[in-house]
């Protein structure tokens, strides 16, 4: 309904804000009904309503304040070491912040590894997540769909340390032959060229696959919810025109759920960008420069910070890592903004 003065109980309420002239027999006898002014507090508001509005507004403001405070904290901690940095923060590939008297840190490799491993995971997880969500909502009989859905959700409950160990000790040896085959046959392409680490499987390749498994339940669960809400009327309209199952999906389910699928994927990407412990276990630390190959080792923002933070003993070194954290913070922000832009561009859902 429109937000007129709520709960006055007079019959004129029925028309909400659409009637501006007072209705003679419906108004309160003593005073004419004030014109609607949206959320203006001029009219009488029930106490419960006021409390609820205060709580809701407060919660909203709290989130904004919290994000602002986190950003501010990162910024304040990051500025002093940045001023004493002997390397270019954005373009240097080495991150050496152990000695507060000789700070020498740049984030380029961290950024590249983070982005590459996350995008690789996303490329693997997006189509599979879409397939699972469509299978569960459109193809699977209800008897199968429900337990299968729980199973996928359960993936999200597996601790990331388990994923890390599984990735390094189980998955890496299994996919090693395939990795070698890719290097032998597609090595001319930078993504598949031989990597910069000697430890088999401790690579972006393995890490990306593990990350894909980790973000799969996020993408699947949200897409499934959205696809399942496709109005029955639209599906029947398509069926009645003689659409096959696949055509029904293409004509109704997909246009209806596309924006939700994209935002689900972006949430998955956000999770991938910030994932720490699994990547810390899998990725081999290396002093070598990141070449862009999937078979490189290295570190992401999060895994680098986690690896090094325990040994820090001064504010400047800590600040250097916080500066890296700030970049990660901004990166996830940009990903979210991009997701919103994509959703807005693809049109409002009906």
């Amino acid at each position, binding site marked *: 309904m429109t937000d007129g003065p709520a709960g006055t109980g007079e019959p004129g309420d029925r028309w909400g804000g659409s009637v501006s002239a007072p209705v003679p027999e419906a108004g309160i006898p003593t005073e004419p009904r004030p014109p609607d002014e949206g959320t203006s507090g001029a009219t009488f508001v029930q106490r419960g309503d006021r409390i609820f509005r205060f709580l809701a507004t407060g919660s909203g403001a709290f989130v904004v304040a919290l994000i602002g405070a986190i950003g501010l904290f990162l910024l304040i901690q990051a500025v002093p070491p940045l001023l004493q940095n002997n390397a270019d923060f954005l373009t240097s590939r080495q991150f050496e912040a152990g000695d507060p008297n000789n700070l020498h840190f740049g984030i380029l490799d961290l950024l590249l590894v983070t982005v590459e491993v996350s995008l690789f995971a996303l490329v693997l997880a997006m189509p599979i997540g879409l397939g699972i969500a469509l299978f569960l909502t459109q193809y699977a*009989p*209800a008897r199968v769909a429900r337990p299968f859905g729980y199973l996928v959700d359960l993936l999200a409950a597996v601790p990331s340390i388990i994923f890390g160990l599984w990735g390094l000790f189980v998955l890496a040896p299994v996919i090693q032959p395939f990795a070698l085959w890719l290097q032998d046959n597609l090595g001319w392409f930078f993504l598949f060229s031989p990597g910069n680490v000697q430890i088999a499987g401790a690579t972006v390749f393995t890490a990306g696959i593990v990350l894909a498994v980790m973000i799969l339940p996020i993408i699947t669960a949200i897409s499934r919810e959205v696809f399942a809400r496709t*109005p029955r*009327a*639209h599906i*029947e*309209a*398509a*069926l*009645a*025109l*003689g*659409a*096959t199952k696949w*055509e029904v999906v293409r*004509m*109704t389910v997909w*246009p*209806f759920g596309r924006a939700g699928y994209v935002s689900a994927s972006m949430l998955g990407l956000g999770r991938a960008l910030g994932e720490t412990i699994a990547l810390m276990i899998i990725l081999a630390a290396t002093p070598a420069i990141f070449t862009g190959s999937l078979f490189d080792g290295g570190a992401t923002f999060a895994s680098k910070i986690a690896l090094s933070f325990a040994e820090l003993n001064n504010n400047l070194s800590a600040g250097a890592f916080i500066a890296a954290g700030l970049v990660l913070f901004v990166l996830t922000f940009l990903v979210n903004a991009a997701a919103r832009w994509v959703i807005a561009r693809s*049109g409002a859902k*009906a």
Partner: protein
Amino acid sequence: MAKRLDLKDVDIYYGKFHAVDSVSLAVPPRSVTAFIGPSGCGKSTVLRTLNRMHEVIPGARVDGEILLDGENIYGPSVDPVSVRRTIGMVFQRPNPFPTMSIRDNVVAGLKLQGRKGKKELDEVAERALRGANLWNEVKDRLAKPGGGLSGGQQQRLCIARAIAVQPDVLLMDEPCSALDPISTLAIEDLISELKADYTIVIVTHNMQQAARVSDQTAFFNLRATGEPGRLVEIDDTPKMFSNPTEQATEDYISGRFG
């Protein structure tokens, strides 16, 4: 175009529930047949078996024969998708595809059949929209989404979408129940015009509507609560509304039902 339908001993089930018992009736081409009866008597269910939409519900099945110009649409080698391409359907609530333009809504069925020529599709869209008495209202905004139209216009858009493929039979499931009286009148006029080219079966709760638009009327009822619905009688509309054979029909039509 405009084929006849014959139902022979059609029993309809939802899982173990026997919804409709042994319906036999004939729908001649280029005529309007109205299904009337109280809620839950199975008239919509019967309608949905005529284009095999009934079976999209898990567990639903149909026994008996439904012949479209003598060919059983439930034959073992018949693809339900191809049945639905030749028997169009209009639903209770207007349901244009919200992400498609008005034009794309109208030609959606043709595109499913693999027809792609832009010129051909434009011609078909105009013909179907003219056929649905909607062309003059939308000709300047064919590229706009169909969801922006009024309820009555949306329903006529759905009718245009159904007749764009020139179906053998047009099924209408309470097409006016969500519309205001003026839009209802527009649809009723349209049904009378469409009768010249199409075989129409319409389910309606509105007995005046059945009397106004149909050539023959079928009355469905339940014997008792929990029993399957059945066809009480089918006859020419004037006779059904003036001098029906069955007492139950008389009671229902005159409002002495129950």
